[in-house]
């Protein structure tokens, strides 16, 4: 497995499109999320030239995981779509807080291995570590993310320093929470 990261312009040729197709397969086809799809590629308004992607690829170069990092100083998913998850607090706007979204770690060449369907250890743990390091290198001290409760449970079990910013709410039939993940070392 190898990791690549960067903005769309800095990713290896073709990888950005491949990630968009992978996202479609995971989030739309597998999980049934109602997302905008164009020609088999899933992208939204937060996929911008300054968006940072972290991508896991297998030994054949196939995408087996992805994450999207957005600075909270610009518009971001939680701030725009899920502010109600923040317990009445305003969405963070800080160069030290980055948002992690569209996180998936599932080898689509194999059967699903987790209840969440988007989160398969050990790819997930390595991808999350790489995402945290990537954000930290850009000044992040904390990540914020909208996560299904199942992912929050797996984060905690894997030892990441994660907690929630407020109570869960149900989105499209699934309970989700805003999770805060410190970019320091895991708790265990």
């Amino acid at each position: 497995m190898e990791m690549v990261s960067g903005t769309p312009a800095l990713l290896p040729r073709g990888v950005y499109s491949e990630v968009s197709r992978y996202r479609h397969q995971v989030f739309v086809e597998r999980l049934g999320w109602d997302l905008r799809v164009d020609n088999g590629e899933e992208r939204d308004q937060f996929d911008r030239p300054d968006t940072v992607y972290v991508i896991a690829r297998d030994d054949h170069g196939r995408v087996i995981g992805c994450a999207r990092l957005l600075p909270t100083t610009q518009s971001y998913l939680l701030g725009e779509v899920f502010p109600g998850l923040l317990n009445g607090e305003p969405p963070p706007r800080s160069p030290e807080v980055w948002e992690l979204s569209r996180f998936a770690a599932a080898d689509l060449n194999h059967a699903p291995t987790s209840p969440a369907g988007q989160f398969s250890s050990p790819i997930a743990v390595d991808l999350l570590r790489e995402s945290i390091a990537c954000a930290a290198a850009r000044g992040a001290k904390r990540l914020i993310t909208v996560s299904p409760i199942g992912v929050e449970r797996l984060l905690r079990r894997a030892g990441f320093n994660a907690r929630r910013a407020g109570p869960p709410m149900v989105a499209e039939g699934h309970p989700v929470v805003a999770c805060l993940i410190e970019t320091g070392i895991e708790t265990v």
Partner: protein
Amino acid sequence: MLTVSDDGYIRLSLADARSTPLVHLLSGLDEEPRECAARDVKTCEISGYTEWVSLTTPTISLGWDWRLEVAGERPRYVREGPPRGNLMLLDAEARDLGAAASDTVLGAMIDAMAWQEATEKAIKTRYV
């Protein structure tokens, strides 16, 4: 008065936490059965999670995993693992207990709560 700290935590003494009622929000079953090989087969067939909140503003949120233990005469819901939430407990000097210690104390607090009946009712309503 409850406030949310910059790091997202609501900070409370254990006494204040205990005196703040929590109500059931939602519960669910694990979508896949957990690995049972290491345990007595009677104890691990069904598992899930439950979420509880305070009626305060801001809201205290606590969730935890459970398993249905059927070793005795009647199935019993048993908490499993540390809770997840937004609460940081304080010691007598109003200092943070720390995440791990706070979770341990909150776990004991949960074990003293009567959460099983509401969870069972929610599971039956949602799945049966």
